[in-house]
């Protein structure tokens, strides 16, 4: 289903009032319901596509729920709203999660989620800013989103805007040198209107981070690069909300939230299983997963 001329969604199957600028009224309980719904979407859409990245999508659900349904100033009816907060999904393979959140917010119809990865779909395998309403960056080639987010934050500062840039990184993604180029630059340019989050599920494709390419001491690295570091349980809404709010108050340096998460969270056979980084559930697995997420 296309968007209307004014880019408003043509479906009204979203959770709440799509005209609200700031979705700050949701309770923790409501957000837990949304998180479950997003998890179900991730399973169904990758299952339907027989392709996609469930593991790293599931681990970041609470993070993205807090952002899109509580924290970000954004307008699904006006994805180009110039004063919006921008969220950059640097770990672009978690596209299913972002698409699910955008659909539930009303950027496009929820039933479009079933077109993931199909030919001519607006929902590409990795995020594509040229086709999907609400997607800020064409990601997928890891290591690039932090730099992009810094550019956005600097533009916001030049324009004297109040908006903020948020970027979600993978932990394995932090193997990429460009991440550390960005880390140095963000501190050097004192980009304090930027909050980064690491989905620290401690796994990558070839196994646990510590076995493939050890990142520890991880927090200390970010501190050494001049960042304000906050550690949280990445599945705890209260901790996440507090961390995001704290980040907004930090001046003179960027903030990174190290969110400890579980890859594949919410689906028993996917939890902590690197096999499901890039493997979609088959029909049987979809059924089991959806029962667990009921």
């Amino acid at each position, binding site marked *: 289903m296309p968007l209307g001329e004014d880019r408003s969604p043509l479906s009204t199957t979203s959770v709440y009032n799509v005209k609200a600028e700031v979705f700050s009224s949701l309770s923790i309980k409501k957000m837990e319901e949304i998180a479950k719904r997003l998890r179900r979407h991730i399973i169904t859409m990758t299952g339907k596509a027989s392709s996609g990245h469930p593991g790293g999508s599931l681990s970041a659900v609470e993070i993205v729920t807090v952002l899109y349904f509580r924290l970000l100033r954004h307008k699904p009816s006006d994805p180009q709203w110039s004063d919006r907060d921008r969220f950059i999904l640097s770990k672009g393979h978690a596209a299913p999660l972002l698409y699910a959140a955008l659909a539930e917010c009303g950027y496009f119809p929820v039933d479009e989620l079933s077109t993931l990865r199909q030919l001519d779909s607006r929902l590409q395998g990795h995020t594509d800013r040229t086709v999907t309403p609400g997607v800020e960056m064409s990601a997928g080639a890891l290591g690039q989103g932090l730099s*992009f987010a810094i*550019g956005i934050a600097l533009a916001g500062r030049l324009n004297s805007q109040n908006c903020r840039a948020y970027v979600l990184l993978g932990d394995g993604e932090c193997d990429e040198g*460009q991440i550390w180029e960005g880390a140095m630059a963000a501190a050097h340019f004192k980009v304090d209107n930027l909050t980064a989050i690491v989905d620290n599920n401690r796994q990558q494709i070839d196994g646990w981070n510590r076995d493939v390419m050890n990142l520890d001491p991880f927090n200390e690295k970010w501190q050494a690069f001049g960042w304000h570091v906050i550690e949280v349980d990445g599945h705890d809404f209260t901790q996440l909300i507090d961390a995001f709010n704290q980040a907004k108050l930090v001046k003179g340096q960027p903030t990174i939230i190290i969110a400890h998460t579980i890859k594949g969270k919410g689906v028993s056979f996917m939890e902590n299983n690197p096999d499901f980084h890039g493997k979609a559930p088959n029909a049987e697995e979809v059924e089991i997963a959806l029962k667990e997420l009921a």
Partner: protein
Amino acid sequence: MRECYGKTLVELGKENPDIVVLDADLSRSTMTQLFAGEFPNRFFDCGIAEQNMVGIAAGLAASGKIPFASTFAVFAPGRCFDQIRMSIAQPGLNVKLVTTHGGITVGEDGTSHHSIEDLSLICSFPGFTVIVPADAIETAQAIRVAATSYGPFYIRLCRPKVPLVYNQDYRFNLGKAITMRQGKDATIIAIGLMVKAALEAADNLKREGIDCRLLNISTLKPIDEAAIIRAAAETGAIVTAEEHLEHGGLGSIIAQVVARHYPVPIEFVAIKDTYAKSGKPAELLQRYGLTAKDIEQAVRSVTKRKGG
């Protein structure tokens, strides 16, 4: 050319507050330092980190700024190919990559600083506009056109001061080849500082009785196919001249157009599948076959292959 780039950026910066400039620790060479001096809060030296520089430029462009990002041609796209691909080319963002020190006239710094592949790499990106100006006058105009045309641009400048081939009446026309000499026996198609050498070659050949057309095809992408096809049809032989590898640059692009539309014999004045080394710029041009004499030799050779 570089000085001219720097000065034009300052002018643009005064005219448009959305112009921002980035560099990777080479602003004293690329001359973005002139902009930095005037507009320090709109200038971002990213240090020796080209991948990050490209990403930041992309983010700035996504937010409505007009970023000019500079470094040596060997480092962009070479060092940040994937970043240009996914952050700029694929989304078609409004970033202007202006590199200096193209080719081998970088000279004594040697292979690591010579850029003989950059045009091949950058022309492979769909949606990029690629310009190789022939002199300072063309450079100033190309920079202005880039600033006011939406989309990704790559503009390649050279290190040495080059003599002017245009006067103040010249008007750069994006996407159009300029006919600098009319002729009917062969066509020389040149870019960048090879245009000067091509002019010299054309004049020498004329004295020999070989009447060469000369095209400066400063917009390498999108290429002026019509002018090339006309040249093939009307002169029957082509010589291309570039400060670049034979592989993937001007010669390859012309060859594709000609082969597809109007096959004629072509000779390529370019670097033949090798790396150049340290030396004085003039020595290197001679050693690696990029002089007026080399163009003349190629024209004599290609005209012999005509009329089969």
